[in-house]
């Protein structure tokens, strides 16, 4: 295949290679890093981030952005925790309710963006502050969840041999990933999202449901954030209004490292998975090393971002050349 034909896969390959390289290096440096347990942990520990990153992928492919993710996670977690812990509701209805709220919140943002042509950046910035404030208004303290249902779910494990096993949350993350990836390739909604990001006006003239798609994308991301919040409550067995601060940035970083263009139209849910894994690998490598400090993570992520964006600039440059030939 010629470069132009496949150029949009290059960032993806680069990401995959980067991940492989990172993991191999870490495995050589740190004994026991290259173990099923660590690999399993990558999924277990980053389930919440992963789910919101998957949602964010759709938003970014559609040419938008959503900064409210982290706060929605926090709000969901604390609402769920208080309803279950303090008011003694059963988790199942509570979870259903939180997901619904997340969906509505996202749809609301989408409507403001679509209907009044407000910049997504600003609307979701507002959403971010609003949800965070809300979370603290519910209760400033973290609230524990002690419920047989939670214990049962937390006990679920898909054994991978050794002590390694995938908890329910990790499986949920993988399920979300598979569904989202499939949908992005195999449903007209998925393709319309790409078209929307690739050129909203053209999409409109092609007779595609631009407005509905845009609103739906934000709605879905709200839902994904809420789901991530629920996952977080299972991960920690509690809710915390301070949870997920800066999660949106990690998610965006993961998406971009995964080969998506913030200008929209280009990106892969699969790439996002790789981005999340890279994120997790660096994080646990730092812990394995045990001497480096956590801020190296931020610096590394920043550099990776720069690297991948430059890579994409270079590729689109090549594309221009290819056209000129």
């Amino acid at each position, binding site marked *: 295949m010629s470069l132009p034909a496949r150029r949009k896969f290059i960032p993806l390959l680069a990401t995959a290679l980067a991940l492989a390289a990172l993991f191999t290096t870490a495995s050589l440096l740190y004994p026991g890093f290259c173990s099923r347990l660590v690999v399993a942990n990558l999924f277990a520990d980053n389930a919440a981030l992963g789910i919101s990153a998957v949602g964010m992928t759709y938003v970014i492919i559609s040419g938008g952005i959503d900064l409210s993710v982290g706060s929605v996670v926090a709000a969901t977690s604390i609402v769920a925790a208080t309803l279950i812990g303090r008011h003694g509701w059963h988790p199942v209805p509570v979870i259903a309710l939180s997901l619904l709220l997340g969906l509505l919140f996202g749809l609301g943002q989408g409507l403001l963006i679509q209907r009044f042509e407000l910049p997504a950046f600003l609307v979701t910035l507002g959403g971010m502050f609003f949800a965070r404030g809300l979370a603290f208004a519910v209760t400033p303290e973290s609230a524990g969840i002690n419920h047989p249902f939670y214990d049962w779910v937390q006990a679920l494990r898909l054994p991978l041999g050794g002590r390694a096993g995938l908890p329910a949350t990790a499986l949920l993350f993988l399920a979300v990933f598979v569904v989202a990836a499939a949908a992005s390739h195999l449903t007209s909604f998925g*393709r319309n999202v790409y078209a929307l990001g690739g050129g909203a006006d053209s999409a409109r*003239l092609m007779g595609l449901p631009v407005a509905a798609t845009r609103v739906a994308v934000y709605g879905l991301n709200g839902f994904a954030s809420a789901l991530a919040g629920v996952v977080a409550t299972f991960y920690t067995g509690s809710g915390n209004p301070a949870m997920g601060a800066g999660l949106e940035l990690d998610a965006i970083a993961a998406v971009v490292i995964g080969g998506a263009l913030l200008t929209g139209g280009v990106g892969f849910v699969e790439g996002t998975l790789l981005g999340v894994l890279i994120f997790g690998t660096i994080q646990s490598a730092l812990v394995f090393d045990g001497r480096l400090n956590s801020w190296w993570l931020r610096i590394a992520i920043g550099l990776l971002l720069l690297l991948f964006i430059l890579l994409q600039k270079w590729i689109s440059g090549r594309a221009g050349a290819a056209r000129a030939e």
Partner: protein
Amino acid sequence: MNESPRELLRARGIEKSFPGARALDGVDLTLRAGEIHALMGENGAGKSTLIKILTGVYPPDGGVIEFAGQPISPRSPRGAEELGLSTVYQEINLIPTLSIAENIMLGRQPKRFGVIQWPALRRQAARALERLGLQLDVKRELGSVSIALQQMVAIARALDLQVKLLILDEPTSSLDEQECAALFAVLKRLRGEGLAILFVTHFLDQVYAVADRITVLRNGALVGEYETARLPRLELIGKMLGRPVEAVSAARKRPDAVAGERGTAAGPTFLEATGLGRRGAIHPLDLAVGTGEVVGLAGLLGSGRTETARMLFGIDPADAGQTRVDGRTVRLRSPREAIRHGFGFCSEDRKTEGIAPNLSVRENIILAAQASRGPWRRLGRTEQMQIVEHYIRALNIKTPSPETPIRNLSGGNQQKALLARWLALQPRLIILDEPTRGIDVGAKADVERLVDSLRERGLAVLFISSELEELTRVSGRVIVLRDRRKVGELTGDFDENRVMRMIAQPHE
């Protein structure tokens, strides 16, 4: 051409007005199955409005459209497509980041249980392209193929539906000869299949190469419908420009005195370009403008006039030939450099390249002058007001106050303000691209008077206009362009008629 032509589409008395402008005034259009029909007209003729009405982008204010015998009123491009009319717009409306196959099939992918069947999709796309005689890797990303191919993909998308009428809005504006030839081959093939093709273009040769019949519009009104074979080029041009040939030939010649004066008054050459050209924009041409001379660039829309201007001003720098200013060879790679050499360029596209809409008239006028002084040597408030008030008076710009946001002004006054912007720069050469487009008669007169006075003050002026009468009246010398080529130059004693003949003469 097939015998016993049956009418596919009859549009009668189509009317459309926009706030402040009457775009279409009772226009008729008749299209037959199995014909290629050219829709011609200069700017503001109403071509695009008519197309947008046919394809349901706008609802018409009046008139009826019959399609295949049924009265129709498409409410959206989608609706029109379902009826069997589909359009390929000039600026290709596809998604460059998606694959060719997907661009063809988007919105109607073959599905099973809501799941897109990619192999089937690619097969269908490939088939659609084969219909145009194209073999492409449909997995390729659209953005990575040439504009011409993108055009073909757009056509393929349009054809993939059960289309009876294909509308092509300036499909060739960005194609070179071979690409055009390929396109025309496709169009003829489709005509053979009994499709009706409505074809908007500015290239005469192309019209005479493929079109069976021609409908000419001018200023939103129907001029007429003609068999191409029976309509000489000269007449066509006359109809497009609204200057019936006989009238033209009878047209009063400019007093020779004036002509003579203009012939001689030209001082030393200020700008001299030799073999200057840019790939894909304008073929290499020679061009010279003297101080105190007005040189007209004549030609139909899309003949390369604006391209020439942009090239000279360094917006799309030349990639061939050389430019001499005052006899010294210079390279103009950016507007800044051009301005430094004393150029000014009043763009034809007032909205996107001219005004800063939310800034005041004052700011818009002094912008260029200030830019040439750099950020630190700010024009004092009083200096600014002197300049601004001087030009408001000199060009009688009608504005409530110099501080009014320029977007609140009428087109004509915006245009004058932009002229003022460049004059405030004290340029030595000013390029005026369609300075009288879309402005009222009074303003037009003002502009013409201004150009004359500039010439008298020893400026070099390059004047671009589609209105040949105006052009010939203003210029002492006219360079004629056709299909992105310089086809000739007229000096001394000339009139619109000769210009039109020159435009009209077929490719040698």
